């Protein structure tokens, strides 16, 4: 169960807090909440019965209602898109979230990998 990762990401994204927000900040808070909901959703299977997980799920629903956030919408803030490169070299400025080992396991042991194969008749 990786609910603590979801919690930390949400806290990092909303470090300024939801209070006294302007329209733009409120929109960003909803975006962060949706990302939080998305993250918890993906941990649902492994977090069954985990108190932190169930608290988070209820907390998200409450916060969404309090801030009139729609469940549908972006889950990451808009970015200025760099011009596409002609070559296929990896961009050094790729968001960290696009590198699994760097983003998901920054402060934890390397992930366990599994293998599946299908061949022959």
């Amino acid at each position, binding site marked *: 169960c990786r609910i603590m990762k979801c919690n930390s990401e949400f806290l990092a994204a909303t470090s300024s807090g939801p209070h006294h927000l302007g329209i733009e900040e409120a929109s960003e808070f909803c975006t962060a909440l949706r990302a939080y909901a998305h993250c918890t959703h993906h941990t649902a*299977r492994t977090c069954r019965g985990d108190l932190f997980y169930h608290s988070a799920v209820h907390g998200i629903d409450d916060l969404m209602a309090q801030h009139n956030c729609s469940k549908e919408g972006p889950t990451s803030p808009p970015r200025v*898109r760099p011009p596409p490169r002609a070559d296929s070299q990896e961009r050094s400025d790729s968001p960290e979230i*696009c*590198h*699994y080992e760097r983003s998901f396991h920054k402060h934890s042991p390397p992930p366990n*990998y*599994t293998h599946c194969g299908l*061949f*022959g008749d």
Partner: protein
Amino acid sequence: PHLRTFLDSFQTCKVPGAWPLIDNSYLNVQVTNTPVRPGSMATATSKLTIIFKSFQECVEQKVYQAEMDELPAAFADGSKNGGDKHGANSLKITEKVSGQHIEIQAKYIGTTIVVRQVGRYLTFAVRMPEEVVEAVEDGDNQGLYLCLRGCPVNQQIDFQAFHSTTQTTENWARRKGPSVPSLPEAFTYESAMAKCREKLPVEDLYFQSCVFDLLTTGDVNFTLAAYYAFEDVKMLHSSKDKLHLYERTQALEPGNMATSE
């Protein structure tokens, strides 16, 4: 085809038609298997579709499709990466051998996929983090896909039962007579073993699969399919001491044993 699951179960399956290999929040892989001989229960993979679902600011949804004699080194839209998003190059296709071997790196989910065409049929291998394997949306099929749960019991072929019958390509060809297309080569159990030993010196389940394939088809290309499947395991499996498997996973119920055709 022969299936090695995420849990290192090893099975030989019928699974004719379209079946999901992987179906989670990030990725969907589906294969279509067709009989290797008219009316045969043994099938091999003739089509493979991989859908990489759109992921945050990394990749747009991309579809990869391979069929017999068509193993492209690009997605269905002609691109070779994840589209126009900021992290598009976290998904990339690399051609290793033209028309025969491609590799797809999906760094944003820590996943590597290898697809090959060996002879007429396709092979598939994947390395994926456990966390991604387990990422199944609630309300979906709860991970009912072959790579996770293996083949349903009624789709498994009992290799030992098959072996104990007299069903070799040699007597199959003799029994069918001259009206059916002739096989490229007819193998006895001993000659199939000898042929497989040339590429697979360790008599593990890859070796046994090779023998099975030669007996059922007479097509020597399946020797290479087993060989490359093992090469892919060597590259992709995280436990180097678990590469060779010797015990076939049996989940057969009484009365449901594979019998002769």
